[in-house]
């Protein structure tokens, strides 16, 4: 079950995505934006399980029953972030209205030449933030991602910006992390998302919006091994072309004891999840995990 989001076929995605990217980059952003309405409706009608997952999440966060309109708004928010990301990756995102908080944290890491772990979630647009950070600010960011997910979207963005694609590390191979200590040791930043439980990875159960859900332990273990500060980041969609970007110090260091390591890991995950909940409440429609997040199966 946990592989749902990995194995969900991206029905119609390729056609729609290519069409809209072509229109957006060759005609106008306005036309592409208008098309996001029928496209969001198309995907809403097409697949039942992501829609149920959306309603389930929204009901929890809003603490009242939600229906089609809410789910549509949820899908449409996601679609907007994908389109904005196209413009970012193509280097044509001057229209963006960005409100950035806490960027000095990254600047001070850069000044010190000390690497760090950037920890986010599938809340808002991680990839847009990465694109902006690398293209505009020349930040030395490498991103750890699970590339089994969304091959069609990935291929498209690889074509749009091969440089950005080259800064992605696929988690799913034996040696994917070997040598990453050298990147971080030279002042490099490593970005990772801490909310999705990757199939077969180490995980812990933690209460999230009222019920237990699995979270990967990878970010906490990595921070411990790499001995660098952990900075939380979010890039929340707040309206057409408007984003709220925030960085906040999560931990100066994460040091795990040899004994009772699991309990210590759990405490850090609980802290991460508490911040995750707060960001979800701040911008409910920015949650981009369209699968049953609370599924307790394998």
């Amino acid at each position, binding site marked *: 079950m946990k592989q749902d989001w990995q194995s969900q076929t991206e029905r119609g995605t390729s056609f729609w995505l290519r069409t809209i990217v072509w229109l957006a980059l060759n005609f106008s952003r306005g036309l592409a934006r208008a098309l996001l309405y029928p496209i969001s409706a198309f995907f809403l009608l097409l697949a039942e399980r992501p829609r149920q997952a959306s309603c389930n999440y929204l009901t929890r966060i809003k603490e009242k029953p939600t229906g089609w309109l809410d789910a549509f708004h949820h899908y449409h928010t996601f679609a907007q972030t994908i389109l904005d990301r196209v413009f970012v990756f193509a280097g044509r995102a001057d229209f963006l209205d960005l409100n950035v908080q806490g960027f000095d944290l990254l600047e001070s890491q850069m000044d010190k030449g000390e690497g760090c772990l950037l920890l986010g979630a599938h809340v808002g647009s991680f990839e847009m933030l990465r694109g902006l950070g690398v293209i505009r600010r020349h930040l030395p960011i490498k991103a750890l991602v699970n590339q089994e997910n969304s091959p069609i979207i990935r291929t498209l963005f690889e074509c749009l910006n091969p440089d950005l694609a080259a800064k992605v590390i696929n988690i*799913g191979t*034996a*040696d994917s*992390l070997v*040598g990453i*200590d*050298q990147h971080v040791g030279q002042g490099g930043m490593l970005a990772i998302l801490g909310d999705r439980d990757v199939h077969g990875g*180490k995980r812990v159960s933690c209460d999230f919006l009222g019920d237990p859900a699995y979270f990967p332990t990878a970010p906490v273990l990595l921070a411990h*091994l790499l001995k660098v500060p952990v900075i939380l980041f979010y890039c929340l969609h707040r309206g057409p072309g408007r984003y709220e970007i925030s960085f906040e110090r999560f931990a100066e260091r994460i040091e795990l004891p040899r004994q009772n390591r699991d309990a210590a890991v759990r405490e850090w995950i609980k802290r991460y999840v508490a911040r995750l909940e707060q960001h979800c409440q701040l911008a409910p429609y920015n949650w981009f995990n369209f699968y049953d997040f609370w599924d307790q199966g394998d």
Partner: protein
Amino acid sequence: MPQQSSQEHEVAELITQSLNLDTDPNAIDPAQPLYREGLGLDSIDLLELSLVISKKYGFQIKSDDPENVSVFSSLGDLARTIKNRRTK
């Protein structure tokens, strides 16, 4: 019990100790994969192992090393790499 050379046994002990595994080091087959099915290590375990190895044996395993996959493919391969590249 599988046959281990003394070098392989030393590395097997290093693996179980540094990663806090319950596995008996003598029971690790030198030809068995370390990653996933096999000994069941994941990429974070292998990162931890690479850090321990560079500290103990004085050589770095770099990310762009084309031999990395084979370095960690089995206990036997890892022990051979350490033997060839160690500086201490």
